[in-house]
């Protein structure tokens, strides 16, 4: 199922263009109509209310990020007296937001590439080749989706520590990749199975090796699937909180989510709340912007898994 938001309503002209027929409006019909209207107003009202409830906190955060500390506490709902852009500058430099951004970009960049490369390799083999243990390995990967990760994190901390990978960017990348593999393999295996076999067979007959067939024939064909699962992993890894909290305790290596939480925790004595809000908004903007631009792909990527 790939349909995302092409509901019938998108194609409906908003005015009724059909022929108008005369009706003898009996009392019963009128009452029915009235009830329908009440229901309509109610349910449409609910839709508007929820949209309001979603947007309000976000707008409030943006507004607060331009206020000074006093105004944040004395009048949370008032508009800023002037736009305090210095909050943003402070957050970026003094509160180390620039470092957090850089760390996050490095970790997510590395893990995303690694996840897609390793995930597509494993998925391709599992989808296209029969060999003993295929089913077992597939379910081994899939099983990882439903286990509580926290259980594994206790020993994992010491595994990572013993390998000298604790508090390193590359260590975090490897762990991110490992925990992204279950869904990636699940999704891409299903995707590779839907691709036609004839093209790959033709390439093979023409003398292409297995790895060449994979690289030059199958991967380009799997591009839509790679994009979907790539977006899914990008958001999951960018927003990841639990893994870095456990495995990345060095203040210099903090990623965005961790950095913000630490920043909030330390505000008790530093008291730079406006800077914190600027940091929060700063962290929200890239993902929201990316979502609005790639709306269709994001939605497909995030919902595709659950629909399979």
């Amino acid at each position, binding site marked *: 199922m790939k349909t*995302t*938001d092409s*509901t*019938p*309503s998108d194609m*409906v*002209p908003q005015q*009724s*263009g059909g022929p108008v027929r005369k009706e003898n409006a009996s009392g019963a019909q009128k009452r029915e109509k009235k009830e*329908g209207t009440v229901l*309509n107003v109610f*349910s*449409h009202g609910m*839709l508007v209310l*929820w*949209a309001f409830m*979603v947007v309000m*906190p*976000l707008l409030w955060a943006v507004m607060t990020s331009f206020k000074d500390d006093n105004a944040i*506490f004395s*009048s*949370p*709902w008032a508009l800023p007296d002037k736009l305090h852009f210095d909050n943003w500058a402070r957050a970026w430099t003094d509160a180390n937001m620039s470092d957090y951004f850089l760390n996050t970009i490095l970790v997510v960049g590395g893990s995303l590439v690694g996840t897609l490369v*390793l*995930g597509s390799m*494993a998925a391709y083999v599992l989808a296209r080749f029969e060999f003993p243990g295929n089913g077992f*390995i597939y379910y081994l*990967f899939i099983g*990882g989706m*439903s*286990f*509580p990760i*926290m*259980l*594994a994190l*206790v*020993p994992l*901390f*010491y*595994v990572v520590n013993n390998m000298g990978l604790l508090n390193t960017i590359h260590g975090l990348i*490897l*762990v991110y*990749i490992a925990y992204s*593999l*279950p869904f990636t393999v699940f999704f891409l295996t299903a995707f590779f199975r839907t691709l036609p076999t004839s093209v790959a067979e033709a390439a093979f007959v023409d003398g292409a*090796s*297995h*790895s060449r067939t994979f690289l030059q024939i199958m991967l380009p064909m799997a591009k839509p699937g790679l994009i979907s699962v790539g977006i899914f992993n990008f958001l999951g890894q960018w927003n990841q*909180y*639990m893994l870095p909290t*456990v495995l990345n305790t060095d203040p210099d290596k903090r990623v965005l989510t961790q950095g913000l939480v630490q920043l909030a925790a330390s505000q008790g004595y530093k008291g730079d709340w406006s800077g914190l809000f600027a940091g*929060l908004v700063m962290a929200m903007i890239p*993902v*929201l912007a990316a*979502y609005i631009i790639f709306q269709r792909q*994001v939605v497909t990527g*995030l*919902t595709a898994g*659950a*629909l399979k």
Partner: protein
Amino acid sequence: MQHGKYRFIVGFLAVPLGLYALFVIWPFIQSIYYSFTDWTGLSPEFEMVGFANYERMFDDDIFWKSLQHSLLFALVLPLVTIGLALFFAFMINVGGKRRRGGPVISGVRGSSFYKIVYFFPQVLSIAIVALLFAFAYNPDSGSINSLLRGIGLDSVQPLWLGDPGLALWCVMAVLVWSTVGFFVVLFSAGMASIPADLYEAALLDGAGRASTFFRITLPLLWDTVQSGWVYMGILALGAESFAVVQIMTTGPGGPDYSTTVMVLYVYQKAFRDGQAAYATTIGVALLVVTLAFAALVMRLGRRERLEY
């Protein structure tokens, strides 16, 4: 296709499978083993203690509290979230006024706008969302209480996260807020693939909106609802609840352990109290709860698959 097949399979599977086994499978197995030891996590020495950790766990009041809260999360959150999402998705896709000349079913006006907006929280990190709401809930200067004051409800000033009776519900509300949009979009995609002639037939038979929903939409959407239920439950038991409880509530774990959930308790025992073995014991309990939950939902929800 036999030439070099096994070499290729091994070559492609070795790295992903090795990484996955080392960072995911191996720690899981280890943690089950550690739950029978007295390992502190601080020193490498430990001894087997049989079921001592499990006995301790059954006498641990905080464990029972955390179990209770986790179960509440797993039951209430999917119920509220999926209920709201079904309502919104139905309104967006099917609930529109029936216009003459238009198609039989259509969503309300602006349905694609709602879908875009509702999805916003889903792309944000749960850590950022939690921070934002922690401010909103602040009893003195938070936006919620100041809004209440603003509309003249000076006497209604709950402590929100500081109130042991309310804190858990406040935390849950945040998770509902952040996940409803995902399910709206997911169910919308499912609803869009239900053929329109089924609705047409229902309409001809004089079915209202409520019976259309319960007789047509819900049964045909059941598979999606069910997998959404499992997905939400696993999130509510695992990573999402960890982030919101750890970030939002004091302690963390709330006043009087009122918001402690199992996943947080595992984390605290392992990485704060130096009781790694006991932490893995609670983790094993969490694993059992998660698997039992998934099995229960799949079993209770089993019904004849409807083809259309």
